[in-house]
């Protein structure tokens, strides 16, 4: 069973953090292991997922998209219909319950696009916890709607001006806060990244996506799908979809952001172009210079704009369990339009990358084959970004 006790997926993962945090990570690991076996915890988590988040989310057969692409049957796992509009809430509810169990009254988080920030602020409000969210000043500007949502939910948004002023630096700042306030504070990491136990814990909380999808697809088509497709930034929605299918024959395709192109130097295709290294507490593929300095990632979607990736994805790549491809900003916009026009769904720009890849994949497959795509979030948050590119004023 991976990860091992210290959080290694072979050479990936682990705990590359200051000594000050080690006892907190050990405590969190112990508490999480205990909670996992505790029926009351499972019951509480399931209650909130059902009654508050709105799970199970539908597995929707995208008939018009399937017809348009003319190949495999495409099913959408509708995480965009979860409360707050993305899959992020699956993880924040789980971790907030853990924080309460550990007696921590203050929650911190990092956020890029603001989706994880909103999901954290939501869970904190619901459980009556104090909440502060670190966000790069560049992202604050790009995602002002989500900043306002967090404030409405009673969270404090702390602007980060260091480094690239985006997700990477917001994460640094959140870790610095945690090192300082480790005795009173729980840090809710938003993706399947960071030091052990986060990658495994976030994966487990997000695995509800794959577990539901498995039951739903078996019920709807009577078998396991041929392909699972999902976007990969840090990689939480994709690992949540993939992991429950690990032992099946379903093929995994993770779609990264190629930004302005893989040779442009402005992309976030960590698995496609990165090299092994340590960042934010774990060993994984990274965008980095020859000197081991972390490069600044670029993507049209703030949620994929990250130079690292969850260690389990690096492991899947190494053992060839998953294939990773990259899709550019412009192609993602095509994906965005495609789903809007064929299915009447505005996807977030993150899964728009995965949707574009369907254009390449689905037509090559037969009509008997089945693809599940994780529609990880809704596109309302991106309307202003898309309008700007299209030159429209809203």
């Amino acid at each position, binding site marked *: 069973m991976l990860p091992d006790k210290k959080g290694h997926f072979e050479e990936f993962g682990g705990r590359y953090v*200051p*000594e*000050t945090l080690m006892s907190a990570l050990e405590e969190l690991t112990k508490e999480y292991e205990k909670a996992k076996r505790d029926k009351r915890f499972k019951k509480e988590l399931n209650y909130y997922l059902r009654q508050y988040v709105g799970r199970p989310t539908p597995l929707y057969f995208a008939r018009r998209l399937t017809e348009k692409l003319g190949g495999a049957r495409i099913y959408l796992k509708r995480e965009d219909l979860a409360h707050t509009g993305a899959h992020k809430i699956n993880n924040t509810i789980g971790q907030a319950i853990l924080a309460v169990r550990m007696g921590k009254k203050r929650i911190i988080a990092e956020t890029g696009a603001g989706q994880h920030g909103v999901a954290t602020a939501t869970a904190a409000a619901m459980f009556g916890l104090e909440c502060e969210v670190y966000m790069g000043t560049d992202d604050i500007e790009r995602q002002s709607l989500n900043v306002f949502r967090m404030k409405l939910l009673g969270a404090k948004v702390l602007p980060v001006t260091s480094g690239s002023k985006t997700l990477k630096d917001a994460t640094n700042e959140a*870790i610095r806060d945690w090192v300082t306030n480790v005795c009173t504070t729980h840090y809710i990491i938003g993706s399947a990244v960071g030091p052990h136990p986060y990658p495994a814990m976030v994966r487990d909380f997000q695995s509800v996506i794959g577990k539901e999808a498995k039951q739903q697809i078996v019920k709807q088509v009577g078998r396991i799908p041929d392909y699972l497709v999902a976007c990969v930034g840090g990689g939480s929605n994709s690992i949540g979809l993939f992991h429950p299918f690990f032992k099946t024959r379903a093929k995994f395709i993770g779609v990264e952001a190629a930004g302005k192109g893989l040779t442009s130097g402005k992309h976030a295709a960590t698995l496609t172009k990165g090299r092994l290294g340590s960042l934010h507490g774990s060993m994984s593929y990274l965008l980095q210079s020859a000197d081991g300095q972390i490069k600044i990632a670029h993507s049209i979607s703030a949620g994929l704009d990250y130079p690292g990736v969850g260690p389990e994805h690096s492991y899947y790549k190494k053992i060839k369990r998953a294939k990773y491809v990259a899709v550019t900003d412009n192609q993602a916009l095509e994906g965005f339009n495609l789903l809007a026009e064929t299915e009447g769904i505005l996807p977030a720009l993150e899964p728009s990358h995965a949707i574009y890849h369907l254009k390449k994949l689905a037509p090559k497959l037969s009509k008997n084959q089945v693809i599940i795509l994780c529609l990880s979030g809704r596109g309302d948050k991106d309307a202003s970004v898309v309008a700007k590119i299209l030159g429209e004023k809203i």
Partner: protein
Amino acid sequence: MNRIDKTFKRLKKKRDKAFIAFITAGYPNLSATKSVVKELAQRGADIIELGVPFSDPLADGPTIQAASERALKNRVNLKSIFRLVKELRKDIQTPIALMTYYNPIFRYGLEKFTKDALRAGVDGVIVPDLPIDEDLALRKALRGSGIKEILFLAPTSTTDRIKQAARRAGGFIYYVSLTGVTGARKKLPQEIARNVRRIKQYTKTPVCVGFGISGPKQAEKIAKVADGVIVGSVLIKAITENFGKKDFIKRVGTIARNMGRAVHR
């Protein structure tokens, strides 16, 4: 014998404590670093810690973050730092430890790092984001080289972790005075003395205290309970405030001397 061990042996004989001075290599540029290190050595620094700049220094506060960022703009890397140490070795024999995040040395290659560090005259390596649970590869690379891996302990370290670190420690143990990042603080936690004593129950390796120390009074107080005092942000601030002035080196030297005197008192 490794220069760090020699230094503590010498200090122990005099029942004295170590003044350990940290500066970021390449801040504000490499030639300034060279002059400052020489000055620090002359003004009472027993050990020099040279910070290797990193893009994501998550254990550092704003002062060292800014220094690191500036050094990176100057394209300072391990290669140029090794060159600097080699040149310094012509003039000074003060022990030099590199303080570096893990990724730059991992990317450089741990074997090659060890070889080049040894050749340059580096005596120790301090990696703030590499806890004892993850340092096997580095330990293997350093084995037999004489270069010491300086281990960290923190106020939150459990007895079990203290024992593990104590068993393996070389050079000195870096005790982090507070839960937090680097940077000068007006007040330091009360428990420092108790925690240092607790660590010393398990080891004969010298225990030095760093993070947050902002003035001679604090330094003097800590020197009474620990084997050494590590000062960083204060020196970086002195460099920032005085760089470009005519007597830049002397001014930084004076601040170092005052801290050193407090430690050696």
